[in-house]
């Protein structure tokens, strides 16, 4: 029942946002209808668009969306999925480039595992700074995003650069380090299956295990978790940081071994940031992330086709995403949707339709966090410092 309502809300809000886009394009004197048709064609319009664009694009969004959702539900404001994703991508590239002879057919599995581990490690830095020094993770994870971005920039011009030393990117990975196709002739790879499986697993863990229950309790009320539940809050948040980082790192490793095959600076068009919108729209529900990840994957895939077919800049998709978030906040404010959304939107808890044991939440505790826009082009950075 609450499910139906949530789906209806997201659908309504999506229609509103697309309507606003259509109107704005009309006012700008563009062929708005053609643009929306192109958006559809490029996302769901054909089997090829669906499998090779939308689902491919949705894969990292689902995984990073899960990373954000689980973190926010524990009151861990991990804005660093982007950096963790980049770390995962970079280490997966290193494994593929240097360790393929050693691992042979297992290389791709090792690359994914190492990528997840690296993402967890990157998140651990923020967790350590929070637990040991009280540094707000909002600030530290954003800082770490930039450090990761520059580290990748260095790697692709240094140790991992292709042999001719002309382009700032790595060599393509050997075939053994690449994820196999899920459907021959499409770009869809097995990483999508990983994402689709990960969502219900995260959902199940949060709902049916003691560890997941601790995560939810700490997110909802860390003080009660500690005093009434005798939960080790620091240990729980540390675990959440690690799992969240691992999911984002896995997203990066999958993107590298399944889509780009080579490491370069712009390997992520801001997946880790979009993930925040994906998770929010899903009400921080892991199963919902599956749906909203798909929605955002379709939007971003369609935006590229919109740019090709109707000369509408693909960045407008950011506007649509932002409108989705703002509208959902507004709707939750006035209608009091799910408990989580209502709290994030400020209308408090109360009479929510959430069924029993899964009334979990977003984290009223630690506040003070962020989300960046698109990652800056390195050129601008050089300019900035110059």
């Amino acid at each position, binding site marked *: 029942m609450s499910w139906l309502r949530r789906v209806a809300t997201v659908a309504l809000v999506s229609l509103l946002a697309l309507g606003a886009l259509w109107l704005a394009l009309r006012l700008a004197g563009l062929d708005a209808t053609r643009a929306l048709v192109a958006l559809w064609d490029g996302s769901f319009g054909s089997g090829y668009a669906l499998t090779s664009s939308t689902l491919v694009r949705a894969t990292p969004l689902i995984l990073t969306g899960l990373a954000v959702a689980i973190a926010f539900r524990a009151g861990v404001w991990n804005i660093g999925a982007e950096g963790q994703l980049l770390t995962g991508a970079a280490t997966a590239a290193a494994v593929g480039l240097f360790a393929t002879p050693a691992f042979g057919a297992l290389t791709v599995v090792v690359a994914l595992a190492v990528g997840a581990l690296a993402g967890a490690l990157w998140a651990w830095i923020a967790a350590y700074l929070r637990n040991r020094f009280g540094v707000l993770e*909002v600030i530290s994870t954003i800082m770490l995003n930039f450090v990761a971005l520059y580290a990748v920039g260095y790697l692709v011009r240094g140790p991992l650069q292709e042999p001719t030393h002309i382009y700032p990117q790595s060599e393509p990975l050997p075939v053994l380090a690449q994820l196999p196709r899920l459907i021959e002739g499409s770009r869809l790879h097995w990483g999508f299956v990983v994402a689709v499986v990960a969502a219900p697993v995260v959902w199940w863990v949060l709902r049916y295990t003691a560890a997941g229950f601790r995560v939810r309790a700490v997110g909802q009320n860390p003080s009660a978790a500690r005093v009434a539940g005798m939960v080790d809050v620091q240990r729980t948040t540390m675990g959440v940081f690690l799992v969240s980082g691992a999911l984002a790192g896995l997203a990066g490793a999958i993107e590298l071994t399944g889509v780009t095959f080579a490491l370069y600076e712009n390997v992520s068009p801001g997946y880790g940031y*979009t993930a925040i919108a994906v998770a929010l729209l899903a009400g921080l529900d892991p199963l919902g992330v599956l749906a909203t990840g798909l929605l955002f994957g379709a939007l971003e895939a369609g935006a590229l086709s919109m740019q090709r077919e109707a000369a509408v800049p693909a960045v407008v998709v950011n506007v649509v995403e932002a409108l989705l978030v703002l509208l959902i906040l507004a709707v939750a404010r006035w209608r009091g949707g799910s408990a989580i959304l209502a709290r994030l939107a400020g209308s408090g808890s109360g009479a929510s339709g959430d069924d029993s044991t899964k009334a979990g939440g977003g984290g009223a505790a630690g506040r003070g966090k962020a989300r960046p*826009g*698109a990652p800056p082009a390195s050129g601008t950075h050089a*300019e900035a410092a110059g």
Partner: protein
Amino acid sequence: MMGGAEEFLAAAVRTGTPLALAALGETVVERAGVINIGLEGIVLAGAFGGLLAAGSGLVAGFAGAVVAGVVVAALFALFAVSMRADQIITGVAVNLLVVGLTGALYRGIYGATGAALTIPTTGTLPIPLLSRIPLAGPALFDQAPPTYMAYCVAPLLAWWLYRTRSGLALRAVGERPDAARAAGVAPASVRWMAILIGGVLGGVGGGMLVLSQAGTFAEGMSAGRGFIAIAIVALGRWHPLGVLAAALLFGAASALQFLFQAMGWALPYQLFLALPYVLTLLALAGLAGRRAVAPAALGQP
């Protein structure tokens, strides 16, 4: 060597100024108990607003930057204050919106490739006498006008926050809104005002990127400065003068590459780009126990 040091200091101040302006605005916002992650979007909007209005002159350019910054700030305040939505989420959405809007408008107005248009900049305005102090003179007093604005704004804000009753009221809102309410202060109004001030200063900070430094606009040109400014506020311990110093320190870390180049050291430039972020993390860790300094109600709707 001398030239290198001078250039280093000048670059430190130049790089630090936009950060200082944005961070000073955010200081006011956070003192009122609001964390505005949308600052990144405000800076970017300021840069774009500056570009749009620059055709009518530099003053108009800065006015455009301020208007753009304030509009974005108002959108944030509408959700984060009036609707009491989560501040982080709202900030994230605002940033996304500005990235998309400026990107689309820029391409729409100036062409798909984003023609390499160049507009005149303010240049530097040396202050008589002061700018002739050896070493520090040119670095501090041969700068673009917004730099001098930052010099003035910091002590002015400090005076306001600590030596006026309205400043007292603003800090009370950031510490304990119900206490402020009991004293007859309306927390929502105070927060709105603080956020708009943050919009003005963030807008100017963004505007000067275009109007005083680059002379052009690039998509995503704020390049994380809004986020860095938020970190700088914490580094400066939420005090305007501390924040100004922290911003210049951050500028210095960014400008280290000039010093090193002058000394003939060849290191990967990404190292220098990453350095300020790493230093910020270390500094924040070094300020352990600083939670006591942060406004107690920071981030609470």
